[in-house]
């Protein structure tokens, strides 16, 4: 994998030119995969009830996204157009299974924490979406940057939703109790709705609303 990343930028003079920075920065806000491309909603709902699984999920998705973008980009001239989706899925699922196996072997505690959701990265539309929309038509280095950018964009939203859900739903962050006991005694109650899937929908909707107001994107 490192061989591919090293070979590609050698051809180009600037590693982080304006264009390259754009690949990295755009998905964070302007073309955010969750809020604007509306991809990967499933996992955004599933793993965000507390911070810890959300963070590990973000890291795993970034790893898989970079890996799959790189591999697909390297193979882009070889993949027959007719079976490209299946090829992409084969590559993605191999990578995800590999990540899952590695987690089980070297980070056992974390893999227990995430349980079924590592496997679900395969069905995360962002990974397939970026492979199809970007990596298939671009050189390896920009594809890697695009992977990192989209992974981070996904992570930002996931973390925002997780913060909202864990704070309002459990009164804690990263498992540390933040809302003091005295407040509960005064009658404060955790918003149980927040830890259920609808809570994630509502938060996600609010985030998309806020973002669209700021960036003034209009849907046709």
């Amino acid at each position, binding site marked *: 994998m490192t061989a591919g990343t090293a070979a590609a930028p050698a051809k180009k003079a600037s590693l982080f030119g304006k264009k390259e920075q754009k690949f990295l920065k755009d998905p964070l806000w302007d073309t955010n995969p969750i809020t604007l491309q509306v991809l990967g909603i499933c996992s955004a709902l599933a793993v965000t009830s507390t911070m810890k699984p959300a963070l590990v999920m973000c890291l795993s998705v970034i790893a898989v996204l970079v890996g799959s973008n790189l591999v697909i980009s390297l193979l882009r001239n070889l993949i*027959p157009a007719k079976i490209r989706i299946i090829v992409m899925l084969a590559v993605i699922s191999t990578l995800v299974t590999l990540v899952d196996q590695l987690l089980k072997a070297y980070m056992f505690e974390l893999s227990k924490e995430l349980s079924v959701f590592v496997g679900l990265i395969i069905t995360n539309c962002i990974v397939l979406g970026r492979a199809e929309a970007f990596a298939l038509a671009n050189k390896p280095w920009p594809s890697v940057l695009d992977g990192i950018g989209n992974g981070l964009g996904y992570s930002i939203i996931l973390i925002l939703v997780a913060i909202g859900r864990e704070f309002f739903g459990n009164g804690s962050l990263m498992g540390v109790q933040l809302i003091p006991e005295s407040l509960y005694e005064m009658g404060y109650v955790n918003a149980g709705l927040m830890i259920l899937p609808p809570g994630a929908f509502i938060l996600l909707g609010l985030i998309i609303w806020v973002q669209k107001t700021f960036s003034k994107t209009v849907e046709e």
Partner: protein
Amino acid sequence: MSKSKGTTYTFIFATAICFVCSLILAVSATVLQPRQKDNIKLDIVQNILISVGHTKEELTKKAPAESFEMFDREFETILIDKNNQSQDRTFMETELKKLGYEDDTLKAMNEGELVSVFEAKLFLLARKAGKSKAEYNPGYKLVYAFNPNQTSPEAYVVPISGYGLWDIIKGYIALGTDLKTVKGITFYEHKETPGLGALITESWFKDQFKGKKIINNQGELVSVTVARGKASDTISGPALDHYVDGISGATLTGNGLNQFLKANLEVYEPYFAELRDQTTQGTEL
């Protein structure tokens, strides 16, 4: 992107991709399997240790080998059959040898592993013995007696397992010497929803079980029940000894836990009752 390439090319490419992908996965699975198995083995032993009061922090600081040593030093494995008689492992070993297991492999397994292999082969063994499975099954159960000072046991740990919401949850429950009071509970394998059902592994949830009673004042086995929401909202008085607070958003995990905890304890109850009789006689003397 590629222009339209021939069907032959497509087939060759697809075959190549499949081959490479499966090769990568096969190699990684084979290479990583011993490590993964060690992790699982260590996890089980650590969970037994944690159920009697050792802390996760204390154990993670130690080398894995030390956890295994600690387990060997502090625990005595008791194997009982369906009539609650203590058994040794010879029967399982001789039976499994009939299926072609090697002596060395069998010797290398601890009782827990041996029982699970034996149970997996029950059907075959029963057929070899010419009996029905129910007739043949010796119903082996494991009890880990916590005996750190080599005097008399301070706690008894038994495995628990059953369906939660998504899949089987496995764990251990430790009971005090009265075999009524819960000393600790752990869960080491589950596929519950992260952030909801998976919270059963959090210490605030598990710690609630400490000091709860599985036997009521009438001497009946009532197990410990996970309530819906706060237990004290719906239950009052001495009954609170048998209830712990539930996890909001994870009612079904709690229901599953309630069911299998009670079912598991019922299986052990006759043996526990015997132990209780022995200890009360002991104190009367």
